[in-house]
């Protein structure tokens, strides 16, 4: 897919030499290589993570992802908390899109306990999950331009994201950490006039969709730098377990909402956007389509949310709610792709094990390490953001 006219890849015929194990032989004392660190504190890195790059000139010949700057041990902390006490902790596993954590934890608990939540709660859960996706996309769509020095769309996106956070504040009582979806249901219905205000925001976002297209996707500089760069070979998708928009940009129609429908997604009318070029530009473009799909989904959900009904199922006293022994895996589609919780209960009031299967672990460690090779240093940040990696979720 490389643009032949602008291909300025270096001559790799002399070094690095490839050893018998298929890996480059890098002799730092030869003077031909330099090791540099990108991160953990670097504007081109998404969060606290760092990349150990071995470069030759300005070309990356080897890369290693270093994590450990953000480890909070949440999965261990869960083992000492009652089920109801886990959800305020779970949200911190993926900070920018906290609702997927709450959702998976709640559904896992409900599955193990064998309880069904009221329909109204399910619709409200869908609304918050889509709003959460929307605010995340409002960051990542213009943010892709930011990694290449185009800061202009970022403020627009952040402003609109703040409007969505205002709606979250009205609905859930929190802006970032909503703590709204809890085992058994949700914590309240829609406030008065909520739909009208959200609709106004959606209209503003639709204008933004058009404007960011002009400024970013139609921008000659961005197109030149992003097209053909950071190619993700479709054969790696299954090899690495690539999910979400990264897989969709490589021609795979993967979306948990369609493949394993949960909540009431089957009742909504929408199409999964896919493309096949699989470079930075395409991945960014897929998210732009996702943004439009999400706006559409929110409108459909708002039209269908029941106005009355219970928001929470009857559960035992949460202070000593024992969950029957068993294990389950629950997943949802976050803006980054399949986001799942593996949960094991030993029959006590505290989970035996909760393990997060987040998309970033794959995307930011083995996949990124492979994709960085032969990249220009200036494109490292762009590549990383195009994979939408999230360090808090890698380490939790």
């Amino acid at each position, binding site marked *: 897919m490389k643009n032949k006219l602008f291909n300025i890849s270096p001559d790799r015929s002399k070094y690095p030499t490839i050893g018998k194990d298929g890996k480059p032989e890098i002799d730092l004392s030869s003077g031909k290589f330099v090791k540099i660190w990108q991160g953990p504190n670097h504007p081109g890195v998404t969060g606290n993570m760092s990349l150990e790059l071995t470069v030759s000139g300005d070309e990356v010949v080897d890369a290693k992802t270093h994590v450990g700057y953000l480890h909070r041990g949440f999965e261990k902390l869960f083992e000492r*908390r*009652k089920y*109801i*006490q*886990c*959800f*305020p*902790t779970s949200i911190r596993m993926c900070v920018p899109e906290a609702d997927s954590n709450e959702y998976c934890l709640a559904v896992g608990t409900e599955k193990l306990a064998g309880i069904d939540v009221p329909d109204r709660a399910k619709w409200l859960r869908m609304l918050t999950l889509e709003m959460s996706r929307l605010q995340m996309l409002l960051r990542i769509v213009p943010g892709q331009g930011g990694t290449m020095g185009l800061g*202009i769309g970022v403020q627009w996106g952040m*402003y609109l994201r703040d409007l969505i956070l*205002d709606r979250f*504040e*009205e*609905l*859930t*009582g*929190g802006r970032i*950490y909503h*703590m709204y979806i809890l085992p058994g*249901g949700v*914590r*309240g*219905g829609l*406030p008065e006039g909520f739909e009208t205000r959200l609709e106004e925001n959606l209209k503003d976002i639709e204008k933004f969709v058009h*404007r960011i297209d*002009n*400024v*970013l996707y*139609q*921008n*000659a500089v961005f*197109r*030149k730098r992003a097209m053909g760069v950071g190619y993700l070979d479709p054969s790696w998708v299954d090899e690495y377990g690539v999910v979400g928009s990264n897989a969709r940009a490589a021609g795979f129609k993967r979306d948990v909402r369609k493949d394993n429908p949960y909540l009431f997604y089957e009742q909504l009318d929408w199409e999964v956007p896919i493309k096949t070029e699989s470079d930075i530009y395409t991945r960014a473009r897929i998210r732009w389509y996702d943004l439009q799909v999400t706006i559409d989904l929110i409108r459909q959900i708002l039209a269908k949310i029941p106005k009355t009904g*219970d*928001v*929470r199922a*009857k*559960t*035992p*006293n*949460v*202070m*000593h709610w024992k969950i029957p022994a068993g294990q389950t895996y629950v997943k949802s589609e976050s803006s980054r792709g399949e986001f799942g919780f593996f949960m094991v209960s030993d029959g006590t009031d505290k989970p035996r094990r909760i393990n997060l299967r987040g998309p970033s672990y794959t995307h930011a460690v083995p996949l990124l390490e492979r994709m960085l090779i032969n990249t220009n240093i200036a494109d490292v940040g762009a590549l990383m953001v195009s994979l939408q990696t999230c360090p808090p979720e890698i380490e939790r």
Partner: protein
Amino acid sequence: MSLKHIIKPFSAWSNVFRDPVTVKDPLNDRPGAARYRGFHQNDIESCIGCGACSTICENEAISLVPVDGIETKEGDSGLRPLVDYGRCCWCALCVDVCSTESLKLSNHYTWVGEDPEAFKFIPGVDKMPWDEEELGWKRPEDNYELNNFKRISMLELTPEARDKSFIEIVKGYSKQEAQEEADRCIECGLCISTCPAHMGIPEYIAAIREDDINEGFKKLYETNPLPEICGRICTHKCETVCAMGHRGDPLSIRWLKRYIADQIESDDYKKVLELDSIENKDQKVAIIGSGPAGLSAAYYLRKLGYQVKIFEALPEAGGMMRYGIPEYRLPYDQLDKDINLILNLGTEIQYNTRIGKDISMEELQKSYDAVFAATGLHDGRSTRIPGTDHEHVYMAADLLRDITSSKEIPVMEKVLVIGGGNVAMDITRSMARLQNQKFGRVQVIATALEGEEILPADREEIVEAREEQAVINPGWGPTEIVIEDGKLKGLLVQRCLSVFDENGGFAPKFDPEDTDFFPADMVIESIGQGANLSYIPQSVKDELEYTDRGRIKVDSHFQSSAKWLFFGGDIIEGPDVIHGIANGHKAAIGIDQFIQETQKK
């Protein structure tokens, strides 16, 4: 790449003509949303310091601390939550589980301060700018509950099925029902301090949840050796202070206790309680009366190894529990289940023996190291209105005793009961049953000084009595029993306006203009019982000290001024079973200490 792609990005310049969207804080500050989870507020008047907020807090940000000006009282721990904002994550679970709805979050969200210690504060006590704010996080709509506030209903006999016989009304919980009810407990422990015996209520309720009945049974016996009895007829003061009662139904602690005791077979009692071998001591203790206090003292003294002998005036053990409480509330086999364990531990009991008549107090003093007297209140008090000397005027306590002893009871066509307490209800309902058996219909009227709202009997007793067709007509003061030609005709009454004066003293006021007449063939007086202390010889009486109200003065271990003589039960405190049990337990500890000290000398 085309010219379009070079020109289009310049469309961003259109923003030059738009107004900025930034909010300039603090110049134009925006308030938090109506549901915003901001800073804590607490209504310290309605807060009871149950600690649910502290228990649920996943960050251990809430601790309960004593507060100046708030006294510990029944149903209030006297503690209030202190929030540490160095730990809080504002999840508001504390608000959602608050048992009184006193704890809330305001929508205030900025707090700037230099002193890190200031961020630990007691909401409602430490004055904060957001204390009066209306908006903020409150527990969501009514159908959102993190606990179950509805009591698991108890299977009971219908009025039609019970009003002719003395079979037990309450059927008891099944395992599933008991576990569901036990699940509602938030383990605040407010009940422990209110229970006269300070039973480990949250612990035995936890044992029900864990389905560890043996453990629960052991917990019961730590403080109460009569669980089958208390599980049926306890006045359950614990339930009146239960934290769950503020927003819903209190836990049915009494039925849960009964559930545990019901699960254990009488034969297994000793094994479960690990009482198979008791190391005997040489010292001897005499107990007068085998009511709750006497039995309780006997159990704990026997457990310590003392040679215990109970002297009982009546032919069977149990005191008022057997001879006062009707069988439909407390069946005799359940009563015997508790008593048999105490007797099987090697406690001696001598029936039909009245102290002062069959054996003198001086003899007891000589033969025993200590004496515990718990003789109870058996002598019915009379209204002393004209006509009470008629042969068809009876005392409730006497009739109840006769019912238990299977003696013949005078059941007449029209029965009138004077009194509104639990004993009055007992005799009313017993007479209703006997009338039903004899005539196939009920014609019993109970009247009391107190009005409907302040009737001293338990509400459920009044409701059930009415279900059984008895008439409760409160708010009347009896003036005269009308007798014509030696035949009892009925009771003249006048309206009672108020029973107590401002200080709560007994000073009934009547309206002589407003009178009524209740026709009756027999009148039963049930306005309270008094103690009969004639068995105490004058020499000992002189040694004793008395309180202002004329009761025998005892110390915290129920030891009287005559050091060898301990008093307990209804004659000292109550009257009810659980006080008796608590007295007996404390007296047993006191007697043990007294004997050990005497030994040293």
